[in-house]
């Protein structure tokens, strides 16, 4: 189904969170009442200090964590109300790029990328592809966009952290999700590659008219590439503004606990930062 079929679909294709709360089993309040409404085709960056709840929020949006309270609507469905079959269909339309992608080390890159469509393929096709990859061209196409085409038949344990992150990205691009989520997708890449990769995610979202939500540790990347920026602090939304309206005061407050603003390069219009970007493990 093409995502651009008029206003009706545009409304049902976004997502909305209403008063979403999530308390982990150990009693930690990861999300404390999050309201977030995003229309189809919007591109949103999530920023905030480590442990602010960005990953939890993304996993709620990926229908992989069930909130303890509140209402979640994704792409016109309600994951925790719908039947398991409908939920599985919904999940195959959502793609989340994980920060440290858990890809089996013995798997070949081509298989890891093709696994993106397991939710859409019948079982026989998935099994056949283990013997002989059914769509190596498709996998190669997505890898080429990330400058990884020559590693198509390499084993994943031969890759660096940044390359593995690009394989995970290629998998989600190959999945062609209608809701594209990314959890610090460039945390293992150098600044130049980070820039290219974040640009690519945005380009993909614009080209296919799909919704993009990415959490980024580097604030400047978020401000440069995303029209809408959401600041997350202590499990709640601190601000939700167009990128141009995010002030330095807001950012200082958001990262008060970390002491310095995490940047990949230079802030537009601010003095050069004193610290290199913080990298999460």
């Amino acid at each position, binding site marked *: 189904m093409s995502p651009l079929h008029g206003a009706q679909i545009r409304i049902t294709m976004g997502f909305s969170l209403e008063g979403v709360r999530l308390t982990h089993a150990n009693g930690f309040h990861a999300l404390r009442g999050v309201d977030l409404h995003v229309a189809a085709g919007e591109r949103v960056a999530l920023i905030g200090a480590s442990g602010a709840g960005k990953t939890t929020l993304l996993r709620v949006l990926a229908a992989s964590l069930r909130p303890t309270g509140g209402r979640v609507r994704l792409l016109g469905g309600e994951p925790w109300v719908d039947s398991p079959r409908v939920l599985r269909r919904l999940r195959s339309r*959502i793609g989340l790029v994980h920060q440290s992608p858990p890809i089996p080390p013995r798997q070949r890159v081509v298989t890891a990328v093709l696994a993106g469509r397991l939710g859409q393929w019948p079982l026989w096709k998935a099994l056949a592809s283990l013997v002989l990859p059914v769509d190596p061209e498709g996998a190669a196409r997505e890898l080429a966009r990330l400058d990884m085409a020559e590693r198509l038949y390499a084993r994943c344990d031969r890759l660096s952290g940044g390359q593995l992150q690009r394989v995970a990205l290629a998998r989600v691009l190959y999945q062609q999700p209608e809701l594209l989520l990314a959890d610090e997708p460039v945390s293992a890449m150098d600044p130049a590659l980070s820039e290219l990769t974040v640009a690519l995610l945005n380009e993909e979202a614009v080209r296919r008219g799909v919704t993009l939500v990415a959490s980024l540790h580097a604030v400047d990347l978020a401000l440069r590439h995303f029209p809408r920026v959401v600041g997350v602090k202590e499990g709640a939304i601190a601000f939700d503004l167009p990128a141009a309206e995010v002030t330095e005061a807001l950012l200082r407050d958001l990262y008060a606990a970390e002491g310095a603003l995490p940047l990949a390069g230079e802030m537009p219009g601010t003095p050069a930062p004193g610290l290199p970007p913080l990298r999460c493990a």
Partner: protein
Amino acid sequence: MSTPVRDPEALPRLGWTLLALVLLWPLLRLTDFRPAALFEAGNLQAMGHFLGGFLPPETAPEFLAMLARATVETLAMATAGIALSMLLAVPLGLLMTRSLSISRLGPGRGGWVGQILRGLARGVLAVLRGVPELVWALLFVRVFGLGAAAGVLALGITYGGMLGKVYGEILESTDARPARILLEAGSGRLAALCYGLLPNAAQELVSYTVYRWECAVRASVVMGFVGAGGLGQLMDQSMKMLNGGEAASILATFLVLVLAADGLSGFLRRRLA
């Protein structure tokens, strides 16, 4: 100034260690475990006498021909038994594996259904392997009469229970995250198994299966009791006739088969590495 670095778990750990030691002692007493008896002069002589009866191994051509035929029969029974046991073990083992549960994502609804099914699978596997293969064999002899069918079926059932339990546990102890992110992207259970768990678990699964096949070869001694033929029956006859030389040749054959199984396992593990 020094801050105390006392391990908060020190007391429980110490307690469990002491308990394990205290429990072990009466167990050794109960089994009348006296390793020194092995080396008492009279006992050494008795053992030497017994083992001496095994020499030299029987090498008469007609016996060797019989041995070869019995070996082939044994391999056929062990292989058929393992194949049968995998028919039981694979579905039950998968059913037992929590990492392949879709309802646990979230966690979603219907989790109790999965929990009951997992418990049932665990129970069925325990019953299958809880009864020794000899008892199953004696039961099936009443249905199929003396012969290989009863033995193969008995092996299949007991080993199905063992394989299923260990398959499930190997899959459980494999990194569950690759399969979980596939399930979270809408993949089915079997596809998540093949793309997420097997790449990491295949080596161990294969090596355990080959080891069980090796055990099945040895278990063919049991088949002798139910007249299934093979090395077991040959062994039974030789022992009854107190023919130590023949028994030694049969034991040597077992040794070769075990070494072969070891080689096969090593080869497969290298292929899957």
